[in-house]
C-alpha cells in the first residue's frame, strides 16, 4: 500500500499483487543507476521515495479496515470475570472486599498495569502494588519447606474502620453504606495528605499536579454494572476476585491478627481484603524490602509549622513564667513585646501550614472532620490559639491606639482584667493545640510516633525554645530600659541558662537513646529508624546534634561564664550569645522535626523491591 494507490483506503486489504499496480496509480520500477538520478516521467528518484515514505509514516488510516464496529452491550471480557464478582449486593452487616488467592499469584504484576491503564491514571500513578515476601535470613524456627518467595498484590483494603476516613479533616472520604467501598471525593480534598500518614497500608497517593490524593475505589462504577474491577479483569491467574464478606468475620480475623505476613496488624482499621492460601508456612515469611532504607517524605511545611507553633507557645509560657517569678518593671516592660512576638510567630506558623495544602483555598472545610480527625482538631485548636493570642496581645497595645481611635478608650479600663483572663486561656489553648498536634501523629499508629516518642519531642521543643528565649527577653529588657542586669534579674537569667542546658541535654539524650536499637537482632522499627538516622540521614542527624549541643549546651555555658565571671562586658555580648544560642537551638529543633518525619518508618504493606 505504499502510495501506489493514493485513493485507496489503505489497510492490509489493499494488497495489490505486486506486478499489477492499482488503477490510477502508475508506478514504474526502474533500476536506480545512481542515487541522485533525476526522475524522468513517472520514474521515482530515491529522494522522491524518501518523501513518499516520510509522508506515509504519518498516515494512520491503515487500520480502518480492521476496526470493529459492533458492540454486544456486555463486555467481551466478561466471560473471564463473571465468576469473579458477586452476583448480589451485600446485605446489612456485609460489604464488598478483595479476595486474593496467594497460591495463584506468581508476581507477573499485570494487575498493577491493568489498573493503571483501565483507569487512565497518570504516567507514574499506581493504585495497586505487588509486594514480595521472602524467607527470613538467617532462617530460624522454620517448620516447613523453605526457602520460598511469595508475591502479595495489594490495593485499598476498603477497611471496616478506615483510618483515612477518620483522619480526614474535610470528610473527603466516604464509606458507601451498601457496598462498604471507601471512596475518596477528589473535589472535596484539600490536599493535606494526612490520610497518607493515617493509612497503615500506604494506599492514598498524592498527585502533585492536582494538589489532592487519589486512590482505589474498587472500580465502584464498574461493579455497579456487574463489570469486574480492572485488577480482577487483568489477572491472568484469576488470583483476585471480589467477594461479599461478613463484617463479623472481618472483626474476627482482625482480633485474631490474621491478615498476611509482613503487613501491619489488622486490628487498627479492620481491612477487609482476604488473603487466601493453603500454605501455612507463608506466615513465617518477612517483607523482602525490610532492609531497604528509604527515608520517608520530609513534609517541610509541617516541620516549620510545628516548630514555629511550639516556639510561640514556649515564648508565651516564658513570658508568663518570668512575670510570675519576678514581677516588676523589667519584666513588665518586655511582656507586650513578647506577646506581639508570639502572635507574629503564630501568624508565621499558620502561614507556612498553608504551604502544606495542595488546595489551601478549600481549607475552610477543615472543621468538618472535627468529630473524628485530630488534624481537624489541631487546625481548629491553632485557630483558637491564634485568636486568644491576638486578643491577649491586644490587651497590651490597645491603649496605644487611643490617640488615633478615641473610641477604644472605653475598653482601656478593662484591659488588665482581660489580660488576666486571656493569658491562661491563650496558654491553655496553645497547650491543647499542641496536644492535638501530638495526637495527629500518635493517631497514625506509626511505631516511631507513639505518645511516648512524640509528646516529649513536641512539648520539649516548646520548653527548650521558651527557655532559650528567656535570657534574650531579660537582656533585651535590660538594654531597652537601660537597667543593668543585677541581683535577682541576673540570677533569673542565669537560672534560665542552666534550665536551657538541662532541658537541651535531656531532650538530646532522650532522642539519642533510640540508637541503642541499632543492636536489635530483628529489623524492628526502632532499629530501622536508627539505621535511617545513621545512614542515609546522617548529615541531617549530625547537624541536628551539633546545633542542639551548640545551642543548648555550649553557648549557654559561655553565657553563664560571662554572666558569672565577666559581668562587666557590654550588654550586646551576652545578648549576642543568647540570640546565637536561641538560633542554634531553633535550627536544631527544626532538624529534629525534619528527622521526626523522615525517620518515621511508615506502616505499609510488604514492598516489592529488596534493594
Amino acid at each position, binding site marked *: 500500500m505504499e502510495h501506489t494507490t493514493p485513493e485507496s483506503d489503505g489497510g*492490509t486489504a489493499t494488497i495489490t499483487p505486486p506486478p499489477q499496480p492499482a488503477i490510477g496509480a502508475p508506478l514504474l520500477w526502474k533500476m536506480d543507476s545512481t542515487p541522485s538520478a533525476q526522475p524522468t516521467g513517472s520514474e521515482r528518484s530515491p529522494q522522491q521515495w524518501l518523501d513518499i*515514505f516520510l509522508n*506515509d509514516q504519518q498516515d494512520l488510516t491503515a*487500520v480502518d479496515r*480492521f476496526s470493529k*464496529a459492533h458492540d454486544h452491550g456486555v463486555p467481551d471480557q466478561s466471560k473471564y470475570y463473571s465468576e469473579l464478582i458477586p452476583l448480589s449486593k451485600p446485605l446489612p452487616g456485609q460489604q464488598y472486599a478483595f479476595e486474593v488467592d496467594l497460591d495463584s499469584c506468581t508476581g507477573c504484576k499485570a494487575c498493577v498495569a491493568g489498573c493503571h491503564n483501565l483507569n487512565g491514571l497518570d504516567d507514574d500513578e499506581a493504585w495497586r502494588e505487588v509486594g514480595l515476601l521472602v524467607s527470613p535470613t538467617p532462617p530460624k524456627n522454620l517448620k516447613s519447606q523453605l*526457602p*520460598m518467595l511469595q508475591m502479595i498484590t495489594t490495593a485499598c483494603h476498603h477497611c471496616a474502620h478506615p483510618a483515612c476516613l477518620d483522619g480526614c479533616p474535610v470528610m473527603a472520604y466516604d464509606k458507601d453504606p451498601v457496598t462498604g467501598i471507601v471512596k475518596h471525593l477528589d473535589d472535596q480534598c484539600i490536599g493535606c495528605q494526612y490520610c497518607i500518614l493515617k493509612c497503615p497500608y500506604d494506599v492514598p497517593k498524592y498527585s502533585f499536579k492536582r494538589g489532592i490524593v487519589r486512590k482505589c475505589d474498587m472500580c465502584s462504577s464498574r461493579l455497579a454494572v456487574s463489570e469486574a474491577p480492572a485488577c480482577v479483569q487483568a489477572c491472568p491467574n484469576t488470583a483476585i476476585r471480589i467477594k461479599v464478606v461478613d463484617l463479623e468475620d472481618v472483626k474476627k480475623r482482625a482480633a485474631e491478627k490474621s491478615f498476611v505476613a509482613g503487613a501491619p496488624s489488622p486490628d487498627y482499621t479492620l481491612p477487609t481484603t482476604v488473603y487466601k492460601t493453603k500454605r501455612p508456612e507463608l506466615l513465617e515469611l518477612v517483607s523482602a524490602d525490610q532492609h531497604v532504607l528509604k527515608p520517608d517524605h520530609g513534609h517541610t511545611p509541617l516541620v516549620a509549622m510545628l516548630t514555629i507553633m511550639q516556639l510561640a507557645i514556649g515564648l508565651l509560657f516564658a513570658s508568663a513564667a518570668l512575670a510570675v517569678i519576678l514581677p516588676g518593671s523589667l519584666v513588665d516592660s518586655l511582656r507586650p513585646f513578647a506577646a506581639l512576638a508570639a502572635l507574629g510567630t503564630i501568624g508565621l506558623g499558620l502561614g507556612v501550614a498553608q504551604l502544606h495544602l495542595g488546595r489551601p483555598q478549600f481549607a475552610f472545610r477543615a472543621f468538618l472532620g472535627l468529630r473524628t480527625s485530630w488534624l481537624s482538631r489541631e487546625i481548629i485548636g491553632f485557630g483558637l490559639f491564634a485568636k486568644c493570642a491576638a486578643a491577649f496581645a491586644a490587651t497590651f497595645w490597645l491603649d496605644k491606639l487611643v490617640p488615633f481611635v478615641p473610641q477604644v478608650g472605653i475598653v482601656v479600663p478593662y484591659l488588665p482584667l482581660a489580660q488576666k483572663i486571656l493569658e491562661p486561656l491563650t496558654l491553655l489553648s496553645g497547650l491543647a493545640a499542641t496536644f492535638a498536634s501530638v495526637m495527629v501523629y500518635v493517631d497514625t499508629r506509626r511505631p516511631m510516633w507513639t505518645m511516648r516518642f512524640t509528646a516529649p519531642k513536641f512539648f520539649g521543643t516548646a520548653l527548650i525554645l521558651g527557655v532559650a528565649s528567656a535570657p534574650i527577653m531579660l537582656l533585651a529588657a535590660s538594654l531597652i530600659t537601660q537597667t543593668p542586669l543585677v541581683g535577682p534579674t541576673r540570677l533569673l537569667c542565669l537560672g534560665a541558662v542552666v534550665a536551657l542546658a538541662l532541658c537541651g541535654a535531656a531532650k538530646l539524650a532522650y532522642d539519642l537513646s533510640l540508637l541503642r536499637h541499632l543492636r536489635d537482632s530483628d529489623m524492628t522499627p526502632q532499629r530501622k529508624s536508627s539505621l535511617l538516622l545513621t545512614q542515609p540521614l546522617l548529615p541531617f542527624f549530625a547537624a541536628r546534634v551539633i546545633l542542639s549541643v551548640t545551642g543548648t549546651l555550649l553557648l549557654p555555658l559561655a553565657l553563664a561564664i560571662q554572666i558569672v565571671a565577666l559581668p562587666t562586658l557590654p550588654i550586646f555580648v551576652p545578648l549576642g550569645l543568647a540570640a546565637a544560642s536561641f538560633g542554634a537551638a531553633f535550627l536544631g529543633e527544626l532538624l529534629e522535626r525534619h528527622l521526626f518525619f523522615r525517620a518515621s518508618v511508615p506502616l505499609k504493606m510488604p514492598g516489592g523491591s529488596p534493594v
Partner: protein
Amino acid sequence: MNAPLDPKANSLLSKLGPLGALLRQWEGPLTRELLLNPAGFGLGKVPDRLKPDATTKMVCGYCSTGCSLNIHLKDGQAVGLTPATDYPVNLGMACPKGWEALAVLDAPDRATTPLLRNAAGEMESISWDVALKTFCERFKGIQDQHGKDSIAWIGTGQIPTEELALLGAVGKFGMGMVHGDGNTRQCMATAVTAYKQSFGFDAPPFTYADFEESDAIVLVGSNLCIAHPIMWERVLRNKKSPEIVVIDPRKTETACAATLHLQIKPKSDLALFYGVAHMLIARGWIDEEFIRAHTSDFDGFVAHVETFTPNAVCETTGLSREQFDRFVNIVHERKAVSFWWTMGVNQSYEGVRVAQSLINLALMTRNIGRPGTGANSITGQCNAMGSRLFSNTTNLLGGRDFTKEKDRQDVAKILDIPVERIPDRSSWAYNEIMDGIDSGRIKGLWVIATNTAHSWINQNSVAELRKKLDFLVVQDMYASTETALMADLMLPAAAWGEKEGTFINSERRIGVTKKVSKAPGQALTDFNIVKLISHYWGCGEMFKRWESPEATFQIMKDLSKGQPCDITGIQDYKMIDDSGGVQWPCSVPELAKDQQRRLFADGQFFTPTKRAKFIYEAPRSMPESPSAEYPFLLLTGRGTASQWHTQTRTKKSKILQKLYPAHVYIEINPIDAERLSISANTDVTIASARGSITAKAVVTALIQPGQVFLPMHYEMVNQLTHPSFDTYSKQPNYKCCAVQISPA
C-alpha cells in the same frame, strides 16, 4: 459520584443546599477526570477522555508468547489498549509489558532524525538524504577496499518477518553482503539447531493448548511465571491437576509454584536427562513400537546412557535418590508429559545436546504428536521464529540452505533474481562476525533493533571491537541505546505500533501487527529504511515486488511453498486477523480454522528418512568453573516480568519502573553472605576475569551456596560473562562463569 449529596452520608450538609455542596463536594472537575463510561466495541468501561472511536487487534511486540492486544483508537491514533479477549493465545490477558506497550513509544529519547558523528566526534542531526548517501558511500567504499563480505549486519527478533526478509534479501542479494546474523543467536539458536538435527527442520511441535492438556509439565531452565506470564496462565487453566516439575538451580517464582522442584547443580541437566533415560530404559518404560517405527539410532543412545546410573546422576546433580525416582516415575506414569525449555537450556555451551536430551525423552516415551506432550522450546523474542525462517542469515529464505545449489536456484526463480546474487555459503554466526571484526575481516557493521553494547557476552570486548570498525550504523527507535551511542551513523526507526507486518510466536502462530501510532519526527519503518537503502544503493529494481509489508508476505508465501513451514494457504493479513492468527504449516486455507495445531501426530518427521534422530554426547565440564581465585558461579537471567532484555523500551514506562528494582542487585546465599561479612542491601563488588561491577546484595536462600545470580537487564552485567559458545548453535553461554565476591 452519581449522587451529588448522599442524604445517608450527610444529612445535615444535604439540607444546606449550595452551601452544603460547597462544603462537601461530591463531584467536580477532579472527579470527572476519573469518570468511567462504556467504551463500546465489546469493551467495558474506560475513562471518558480515552473513549475510542474504533478498535483493532494486533500482536504484542515483546516476547514470543505472541499475545494479541486490542488497540483503542481515536482518530486513527492509539489511545489505549486492552488484551484481546478472543485470541487463542492470551485469552483476554496481558503481562505488564503488554499493558504498557504504547507508553514507551512517547519517550523523549526516541530517535527523530538521522544522526551522523561529526569531526568533533559528536552526533549531529542530518537529513535522510545525506544519511542514506553516507550509508551507501561508506559501505561501498569499505566493500571496494576490503571485499563485498567486509560489511555485515546484526539484526533482531524484534521486527516483523517482512522487514527481516527484506533486510536479508537486500543485504545479501542487493548489497552483496555474506554475513548477517541476529540477536536471536543469543536466545534461540540452540533450539533451532537441536530441532534441525533431531527433526530435520526447525519445527517446535507444540501448541499452547498443550499446557492445558498435559498430565505433567516439565519446565527446564524456564522461569515461566515471570518470563512468560501468559503461558503460565495456560498452565493454571489445566484442569488435570498436572505435576509441574521445575528444573532450575535457583528457587525461582516458577520453582515455588511447582509440585516438584529439582534444584540441581548448575549444568548438571544433561546428566540428569541421560539418567532419566537410563532408568526408563532399564525399567522398560519406553514405547518400543514408536521408537522402532519413527526414530533412528536408539541403540546407540541406549549404549550411551548406560553409565548414567541413578547413583552417578544423583552424585552429579546433587539430587536425592527420592527426588530422582519421583521425577522418573512422573515421566512414566503420567499419560501426557510435555517438556518445555527456555534460556536455561539454550544459553549454554552444550545447550543443543541438552535440548536433544529432552527431545530424546519425548521420543522414547512417545510424548510427541499427542495432545499435552512434546519437546517444546519456548522462544524469547516476539519474532525470533520469523527470523528463524526468513531472515536470510544462517538459513536461506524459507528455511533453506545456502550451500545447496537447488535451494539457491529455487529462491532465485521465486524472486526473479540472478542466482549468482545468492551467496553459496551460510552467514557467520554473531560471535563469528564479532571475531571477524577482531581479525579485520569485517570493517563495516549495520546493527538493527538490537543492543549489542549491552547484551553481548563479555561486553567489554564490544568497545574494543568498535574501534576496529571503519563504519558502524545503528538503526533503532531510541538514539540512547548503549550501541546507538557508539554509532557513526544512527538511523531513526519506527517502532512496534508504528508499522505493519507479521510476527511468528513460539507455537508457530503468525499474527499481524499494525500501524496505530505516528512515529516521532522523521523516524521510518525498518521496511522503508531498507527500501530506501536499496534505492540509494542502486538495487531498488531488484526488489520492486517487495512493494509493501503485505506484498512481501505474499513473497514469503511463495518462498514457503513445499517447505515444512508452508503458508501458502494464508490469503492475506485479513485472514490472519480474522482467524485469530494462523499456525504454520498452512498449505490450504481450511487448516486455519483449527486454532490449536501440533506437529508430528503421524510420527513423520522432516528428515530424509522421516525418522527423528536420537542425538547424544557426553556431558562436558563448564568452560569456566569456579576456582580458588574466582570461587563463585555466576548465574544470570530474567529479573521480573516488567523488564525486557536490555530495557531499551521497558525502562521508558514509569509504571514498569515501579515494578522492578531500580538498582542492579545480586542474589547471594546467607551462608556465603555471612562468611564474607556481606549484609543485606549493601554494595558488593563482583569480579570475573573480564570485569568488575558493583551491585546491592540480596541475601536469600533462594540461591544455593557457592552460586550468585544477577538479572541480565542491567547494563553492567555482561561485563562479567564468559565468551564461550555452544559448539553447534554458537549460542553464547550466558549462564555460567566464575566470579569473586567482596563487600564494596
